[in-house]
């Protein structure tokens, strides 16, 4: 059974998430503050941490930094939609993903699954990615759409690969810029252009992307492997 550590100071939310996550087969431990969360994380070695950024005792970003100092456990941040700065800071500090408040349970479950898959893929790197018609063979550097090979420039491939290795999770502008242009301070306009090119090649309707999704103000997310 997968251990999840839920950190939130809001009893109402804990009251909902604990039984529902339990029903999904996760074992849930809860903490209502950062100090308690760090102590619990030492004890139970959770496989996923759900973390509300607004904690009464210590700042959420500090909790992330402290967790990262000792472990690579996937951290999913629960935050408000308008707090892009907070989200980006959390991701920069080592969080893996976030979910906006208010969320539907399906969205949270998808994030948890993506996080678990990603953390297991860190141990033994996957050789392929497949979602809908899109297929990527990492060893052969081959991308195909419904069986037909898609020609990608090296930069396009690097970006797609990075997104695919974190499939289902958000990848920040900063990280993509570092991958494509070697500097995370490059102009994000380049990135937008390349994402547009990628969508032209892999999306059925580039105007209404289903695979390569925009996370406004934060980054991009490639649909989880299915």
């Amino acid at each position: 059974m997968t251990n999840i550590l839920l950190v939130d100071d809001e009893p109402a939310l804990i009251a909902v998430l604990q039984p529902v996550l339990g029903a999904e087969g996760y074992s849930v431990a809860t903490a209502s503050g950062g100090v308690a969360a760090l102590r619990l994380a030492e004890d139970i070695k959770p496989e996923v941490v759900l973390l509300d950024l607004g904690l009464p005792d210590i700042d959420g970003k500090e909790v992330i930094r402290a967790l990262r100092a000792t472990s690579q456990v996937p951290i999913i941040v629960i935050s408000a939609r308008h707090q892009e700065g907070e989200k980006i800071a959390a991701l920069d500090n080592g969080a893996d993903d976030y979910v906006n408040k208010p969320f539907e349970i399906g969205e949270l479950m998808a994030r948890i699954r993506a996080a678990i898959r990603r953390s297991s893929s860190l141990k033994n790197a996957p050789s392929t990615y497949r979602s809908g018609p899109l297929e990527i063979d990492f060893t052969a550097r081959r991308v195909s759409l419904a069986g037909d090979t898609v020609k990608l420039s090296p930069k396009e491939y690097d970006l797609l690969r990075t997104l695919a290795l974190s499939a289902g999770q958000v990848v920040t502008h900063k990280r993509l810029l570092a991958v494509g242009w070697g500097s995370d301070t490059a102009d994000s306009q380049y990135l937008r252009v390349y994402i547009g090119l990628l969508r032209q090649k892999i999306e059925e309707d580039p105007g209404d992307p289903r695979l390569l999704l925009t996370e406004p103000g934060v980054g991009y997310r490639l649909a989880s492997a299915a």
Partner: protein
Amino acid sequence: MTSGRPNPIARFLAAHLDRGALLRTAIVLALSALLAFAVYPLGEVASALVFVLGITIAGAWSGLASALIAAVAAFLIYNFYLTEPALTFRLATGGDLAPLIVFNLCALVSGVLAGRLKDHAQAARSSNLQLHSLLALSQELQSALRLPDVVVTVERAVHRILGARAVLLHFEDEALRSLSPLPIELGWLAFAHHVATGGTPPADAALIGRRLEPANAPHAVLVLEPLRPGKLEPAFVDAVANMVALALERAALSEQITERRAAAGAEKLKTALLASVSHDFRTPLTAISASASSLIAYGEKLDPETSARLLRGVVDECARLNRYTANLLEMSRMEAGGVSQPLQILSAAEMVVAVLHRVRPRAGERKLLLHPSDQDLLITANPSLFELVLINILDNAILYSDEDARVEVTICAEHGACRIDIADSGHGIPEHALLRVFERFHRVGKSETAGRGSGLGLAIAKGFVEALGGTIDASIPGLDGRGTRITIRLPLAEASNP
């Protein structure tokens, strides 16, 4: 001795002589004559010098006219008594005329010098007076920070210090209007218009006008009418006008600052309200969304007890959202101008019982107790607002306490007021924050985003209680040497007889 003299000399003497000057001259002359007789044995020259000294003293003391009179009189005395032949006015030799000439020249020099000295002194005195007037005016204007104050101060101070009637006019929508609360004559308005447009004012020279051009305020006109004889010097009037223009500038500036501060305050409140909406509404919404979507997605997997709890949670969170909405609404209503809701006579105990009943479901294991007073105490208030206030306070007691805490409400009569104490054995408030808890958006806690309340509850409570003429205080400890105590005192309604 001046009678029968030609007119110009008489006029000169009249203008420059008064009784005091004549008396002083006579005394000096008499003393000089006595001294001259006394020194006569030493020779004519000694006597003549004594007279020169006397004339000089008369001139220095009383001015040119006195000096000339003294010179003529001295010559006559000298000629009649002292020169040969004595006791006649006859001049024996041409040399006898020399004293007359010397006396008069000496009188002329000493008189002119003394006159100039006096004029300087006079000028210094008058400029000193003007300086004092300006200083006094500027001090009075300093304390006038609003336009109406400036207008009143100018009128009052100019009248008192300069002895003139003053009226300030300024341009409002291109038209010149009087700022004075009193009506002004049409003639003044016409005069002011001439001053403002730079035209030649009518011959009515009794009025003095200056155009004022403050940097950040409408241009204005200052019109003065001297009420005392004596001239107001143009340079002095300019200085006064400058000072008034500066005062107008300062008033406009302070008005702008006040406006901007009010606008900034309103903007801050709006931002805070929006932040409160986005933060405090999202939490219950998240719980509701998660519960409802879980019931849809995993309805069958969840046991009936969990399903019921999720549904219960949805209802509770809806109630919480409703309370937030009510608080926000009350807050903006209070901001818009006081509590103007219909008032009723209410029983304090009855209200508390009803509120305790409503709050109990979310109190968990906490014990909520009521200690009512012997008689039923009645107060005048709006029932829904009073309920909201009590709920806000009790919610705080629940929110900031552990499950095993107690919350006790005590009602009693105290000096013609109804006192309601809500005390808990919870976490309490740091002593330095006791006053701040009644500020809007103040939350007790370290993190800005932390806390479950909107930070509006106690601010609303304070607004409500004060609008009814009551007081509200926070103190520590509450119960068992810990926790918080909120004390409300409301005036008793007429109908109750404590």
